[in-house]
């Protein structure tokens, strides 16, 4: 029924992942970086689901489910952190946050 | 099974002590070590019966299947000797702490007992990996003992000691891994390793890995610089543990994990090892002559003595090996006595410089008597315990090379020089102005010193049981390690 070769999914998710990486490198706004991470996570999700479907194995989808759980928790905590950082330095620019060295 | 009990008594005691407070801590520790000592005598009686011993003393359970690591503990003559030494000294070390106030004594004694556990573990394990675990475990309690209860400058000194020994252990671990992958049995069991030698081309490499680890622990020249500082800084009971038992770990390991495992490697590098040992004997003795700090003087004398033991072991002949074993026992007893005497003096006078002491014999004649007995024991007067060991060791070295024996024999002269010089400056003469009051021995001090004095004579006059105990294993090690 599925006429799309799995390779395409691989390529797609890899490409998406790389876009996410590029975004992380490119932007300085912490919120955007967080979003790019979501993008990367989704690329992985897509890959997992495609494998699960093609192999007829439900484990992959269960895994994706848990990734979503983690992603949701991560975003919640991450954003809370960002808000509290913003409250202190009035910016979300990651280059300002360079106190953690040596 | 009996061996396991021997191993567990200190561990359990170490945990239980944590729940006690005040004076009961000391009494409980003392009680535990005495129980352990009595039990050792029982084990010895079982050991004499060869048939029963086999089934009762050895345990070999698979622990980790891959890599193949077994929980393999057993007892043979040499192990039993070392266990006996530890268990003999432990009550004395605990007793030495009576009448002394100590902060957080329950933690202190817990660490001491934990150390005891680890030391026994080192002596009874017959699996390389298990042995390594105990070897490293022994380092932890003594580190904290020196760090928390030590003297001036303890942090730097303890760190130096810790890193020194750890570096050596790392090499040994590396050696063990190398050994594991390069023997065709893929096992670290002592019984396998002694039968199934690694290709002699690789033994030289392993020799250095192990030798440096042991040379640091023993310590041999030039790996000794941690020792004088550590001895003078650590609390007395720590020093007694270190010098009395922990050093013996290195010597014991030479005999257990070096000679029979890689005989060709040992045979190849024995000249260098003996040269280091013999030079060390003279070098440390000469330094000891001019030392003014009491504890440092004894530390250097200890380096000289253990250098002689190691030299005898590396002579690779029967009397050297057997003499080494006997001398380990003797040196353990003597060095503990010597350091305890030093502690009594320093504790009473608050002074460790021998030039500002003197005339103590006038005030404390009983202490002076015990001290001179211990001093004579450590300069190996006949009929004291270290004479026979020293005689056999020197003869062992003599058989290897007569010039080396003459050089090492200088310890006979130099030992007398520094010990008598020390005794004269500290105990004899008229009272120094720094020494005005010197209380004679308290009951616990007298008990410790009297025990040591008795032991010095007992093992000097009746050395035969000890020699017979270690003879089979010494013969075995000699046969395995004898390379044409």
């Amino acid at each position, binding site marked *: 029924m599925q*006429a799309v070769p799995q390779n395409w999914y*691989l390529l797609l998710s890899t490409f998406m992942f790389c876009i996410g990486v590029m975004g992380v490198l490119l932007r300085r*706004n912490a919120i955007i970086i967080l*979003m790019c991470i979501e993008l990367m996570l989704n690329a992985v999700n897509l890959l997992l689901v495609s494998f699960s479907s093609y192999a007829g194995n439900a484990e992959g989808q269960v895994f994706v489910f848990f990734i979503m759980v983690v992603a949701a928790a991560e975003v919640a905590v991450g954003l*809370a952190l960002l808000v509290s950082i913003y409250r202190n330095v009035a910016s979300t620019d990651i280059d300002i946050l360079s106190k953690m060295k040596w | 099974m009996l061996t396991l009990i021997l191993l567990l008594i200190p561990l359990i005691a170490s945990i239980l002590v944590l729940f006690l407070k005040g004076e009961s801590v000391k009494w409980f520790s003392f009680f535990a070590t005495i129980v352990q000592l009595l039990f050792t005598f029982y084990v010895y009686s079982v050991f004499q019966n060869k048939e029963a011993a086999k089934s009762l003393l050895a345990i070999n359970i698979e622990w980790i299947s891959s890599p193949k690591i077994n929980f393999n503990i057993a007892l043979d003559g040499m192990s039993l000797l070392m266990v006996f030494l530890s268990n003999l000294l432990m009550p004395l070390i605990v007793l030495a702490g009576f009448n002394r106030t100590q902060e957080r004594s329950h933690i202190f004694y817990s660490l001491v007992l934990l150390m005891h556990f680890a030391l026994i573990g080192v002596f009874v394990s017959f699996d390389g990996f298990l042995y390594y675990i105990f070897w490293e475990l022994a380092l932890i309690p003594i580190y904290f003992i020196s760090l928390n209860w030590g003297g001036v400058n303890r942090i730097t000194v303890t760190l130096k000691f810790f890193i020194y020994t750890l570096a050596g252990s790392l090499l040994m671990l590396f050696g063990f891994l190398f050994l594991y992958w390069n023997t065709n049995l893929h096992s670290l069991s002592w019984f396998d390793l002694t039968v199934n030698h690694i290709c002699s081309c690789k033994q030289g490499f392993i020799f250095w890995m192990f030798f440096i680890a042991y040379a640091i622990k023993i310590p041999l020249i030039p790996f000794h610089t941690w020792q004088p500082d550590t001895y003078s800084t650590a609390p007395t009971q720590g020093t007694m543990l270190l010098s009395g038992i922990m050093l013996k770990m290195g010597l014991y390991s030479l005999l257990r994990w070096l000679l029979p495992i890689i005989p060709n490697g040992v045979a190849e590098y024995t000249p260098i090892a003996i040269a280091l040992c013999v030079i060390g004997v003279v070098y440390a003795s000469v330094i000891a002559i001019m030392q003014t700090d009491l504890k440092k003087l004894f530390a250097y004398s200890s380096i000289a003595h253990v250098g002689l033991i190691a030299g005898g072991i590396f002579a690779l002949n029967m009397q050297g090996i057997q003499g080494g074993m006997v001398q380990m026992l003797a040196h353990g007893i003597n060095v503990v006595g010597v350091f305890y005497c030093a502690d009594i003096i320093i504790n009473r006078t608050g002074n460790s410089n021998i030039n500002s002491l003197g005339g103590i014999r006038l005030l404390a004649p009983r202490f002076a008597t015990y001290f001179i007995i211990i001093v004579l024991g450590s300069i190996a007067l006949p009929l004291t315990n270290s004479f026979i060991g020293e005689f056999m060791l020197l003869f062992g070295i003599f058989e290897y090379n007569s010039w080396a024996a003459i050089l090492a024999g200088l310890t006979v002269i130099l030992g007398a020089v520094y010990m008598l010089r020390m005794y004269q400056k500290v105990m004899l003469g008229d009272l120094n102005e720094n020494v005005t009051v010197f209380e004679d021995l308290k009951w616990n001090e007298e008990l410790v010193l009297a025990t040591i004095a008795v032991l010095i004579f007992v093992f000097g006059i009746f050395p035969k049981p000890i020699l017979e105990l270690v003879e089979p294993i010494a013969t075995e090690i000699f046969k395995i390690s004898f390379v044409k």
Partner: protein
Amino acid sequence: MVISQFIFYTLAAFTLLSSLFVVFSKNPIYSVLWLIVCFFTIAGHFVMLNAQFLAVVHIIVYSGAIMVLFLFTVMLLNLNKETEPHKPTLLKFGAVIAGGALFLIVIAAMRSGMPAPYVAPQMSEVGYVKNIGMKLYKDYTLPFEVASILFLSAMIGSVVLAKKERS
């Protein structure tokens, strides 16, 4: 079966484009919005892969919860085009090149591990709610419950973090 291929390509194009927009939009608000689009297309992919349950959950969790959170935060912090910090141009080039290089190298690395170009399609029903439900509640009960604890702690954590500190 051209239709499914057509749908895939369209969705894929949308996915990639929207994610590129996420990265390159100047205004954070637009990034968020494009991300929502992206998530929807991914949900579409899930449907295509017969993973209906996940598709629905994806929309609810990501587009519904997470993205709202993002949007809310962006607006709360009043981030806009003017406040948006920028990297030097050289670094931007570097980032693009690094991303491209990573893509190439990952593809190259996967080359040997790629499945055959055409895999016999499997009529799978694993993505149905019933199957996933059985899996989750029978085989993965413990992780499922642990996940709820994770959520709880995340919730408490974010409340604690976001709460205004009294000084």
